[in-house]
């Protein structure tokens, strides 16, 4: 809104009530995050007995030492990074390709293929039949079980198709006049102008895979294949820190306190990479929401 807004005194009261509401919500988002970060540095006994303390002697890096000395966390990071990267690239390539013919009005079979994809958005075999298929394909304990079934993301195909359609048709016509084939037009002309949507799709798929745990939980039994979310699940949700992390606890009560404090350090370590990168990518994520709403 560029126009200058004039507020009466009554308006200003309303406005400030609104600001306070917004501030309260922002604080409600911020405080838990800050609490997690602070708690990750506090001595376990102090934390569970009296909470956050600002005495220097109550601060310690013990929590982080415990997290990093466990090699499963590092392994989880590596696995998650590999799975997410391969999945994001593979899935985006498949979707970008599939969206192209669907964006051409003259493409014979467009409606049929469109419907073929759309149906899977609304109906599917569900948990057990999919599990049986994956197990019959011998993909249990294979990272491919995480990558292949979800690679075709119909929503992303729609996003890409919408974006292609926003590219002026003249570009296609000019290329055709110059004798470019569909393949040449797609790779030489269309893809270079589609970088924004490609960034959006890659990021969406990367974050989606990075944050998921369920497929890995049911398909990957081998500990050494587990992604980060599954490794931290046992610490955070199942309350069972990995044995090496609490080996120095003298008794059960002490172990419980360490396990409690360990959670905060684990949360920080596991969430940091994404939250640090997030401000740089925020505009792409936002763009994805906007593009989706065109066809909402």
């Amino acid at each position, binding site marked *: *809104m*560029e*126009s*200058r*807004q004039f*507020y009466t005194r009554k*308006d200003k009261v*309303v*406005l400030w009530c*609104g*600001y306070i509401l*917004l501030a309260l*919500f922002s604080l*409600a*988002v*911020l405080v*838990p995050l800050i*609490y997690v970060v602070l708690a990750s540095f506090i001595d376990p006994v102090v934390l569970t007995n009296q909470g956050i303390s600002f005495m220097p002697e109550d601060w310690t890096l013990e929590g982080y030492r415990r997290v990093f000395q466990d090699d499963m966390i590092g392994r989880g990071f590596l696995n998650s990074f590999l799975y997410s990267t391969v999945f994001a690239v593979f899935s985006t390539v*498949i979707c970008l*390709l*599939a969206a192209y*013919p*669907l964006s051409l009005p003259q*493409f014979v079979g467009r409606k049929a293929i469109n419907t073929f994809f*759309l149906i*899977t*958005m*609304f109906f*599917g*075999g*569900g*948990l*057990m*039949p999919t*599990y*049986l298929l994956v197990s019959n394909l011998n993909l249990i304990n294979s990272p491919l079980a995480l990558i292949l079934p979800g690679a*075709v993301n119909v929503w992303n195909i729609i996003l890409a198709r919408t974006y292609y359609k926003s590219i002026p048709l003249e570009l296609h016509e000019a290329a055709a006049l110059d004798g470019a084939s569909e393949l040449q037009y*797609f790779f030489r002309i269309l893809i270079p102008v589609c970088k924004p949507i490609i960034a959006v799709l890659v990021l969406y798929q990367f974050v989606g895979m990075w*944050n998921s*745990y*369920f497929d890995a939980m*049911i398909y990957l039994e081998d500990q050494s294949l587990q992604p980060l*979310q599954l490794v*931290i*699940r046992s*610490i955070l*949700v199942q*309350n069972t820190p990995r044995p090496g992390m609490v080996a120095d606890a003298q008794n059960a009560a002490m172990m419980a*306190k360490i396990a*409690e404090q360990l*959670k905060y350090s*684990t949360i920080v370590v*596991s969430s940091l990479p994404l*939250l640090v990168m*997030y401000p740089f990518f*925020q505009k792409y994520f*936002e763009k994805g929401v906007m593009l989706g*709403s065109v*066809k*909402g």
Partner: protein
Amino acid sequence: MSLPKFPDAETRHKKLVYIKNNWQLYVFFALPAVLLTFIFKYIPMGGLAIAFEDYNNRLGIFGSEWIWFENFQRFLSSTEFPRLMVNTLKLSVYGLLWGFFPPIILAILLSRVRRVGIRKKIQLLIYAPNFISVIVLAGMIIAFLSPVGPINAALGTQSNLMTDPAAFRPIYIISGIWQGAGWASIIYTAALSGVSGDLVDACNIDGASLLQQIWNVDIPTLKPIMVIQFILSAGQIMNIGFEKALALQTDLNRAASEIIPTYVYRLGLEIGDYGYSTAVGLFNAVINVVLLLAVNAIVSKLNDGEGL
């Protein structure tokens, strides 16, 4: 949909020529996705047959005994059925109702923040929880609510809300708003940024108060999006965040936290009752499709004949 046509020889020939000239579009572009979709989406649909079987893993789909609707009858007549249905519906309907307005309110409030720098900082903050994983979110909730956690310390109590069925839905819904409201406000913020300056000028000239402006300019601007968002989420009623419910489920809060998808998971993969579990999942999926078709019909009407 148009009536089926009988293409004369000429149009059929034209189509064949198109396919022949553009065969790359079929083989390189469409085929990979079609193939993957066929294998991983359509074959499991065929696998739904085991919902009608007394499925035995050793005998396989083709060897197991057909029992037709016995699995469905067993589910519908089980004592768990009403509880599961109520839990599923309550969790999603309450979630929808409580979660619907916060993003709209946030967007309206954000649009009134004059200083762009401050607005951007608030947006950066309130969008951030969207990127926290389900496991980390569940971990935060469990740690905060633990008997030795900060919330009990602040209240001076020692309760464990994670084992209390009555607390499950509030926990699920409040954490959902905490995580998702900011992100969901983006779409409304975008719409509000399109409000023309002329309208604001007109409001000033007419001496409309701030509340009148919100009521007469902001709300009508947002209304079409509100309607579509509401209907779209209503179409997902049976399809709620299963991963989060599973992560927050404990043996003791199961009375409220067991919803149809978690039940399907427990029966199928933990107990190994494949056929029955598939039948329950299919029941859920069919209800959802019916809801979606209804929803799509409504969206089409509201959106100038254009559905999905």
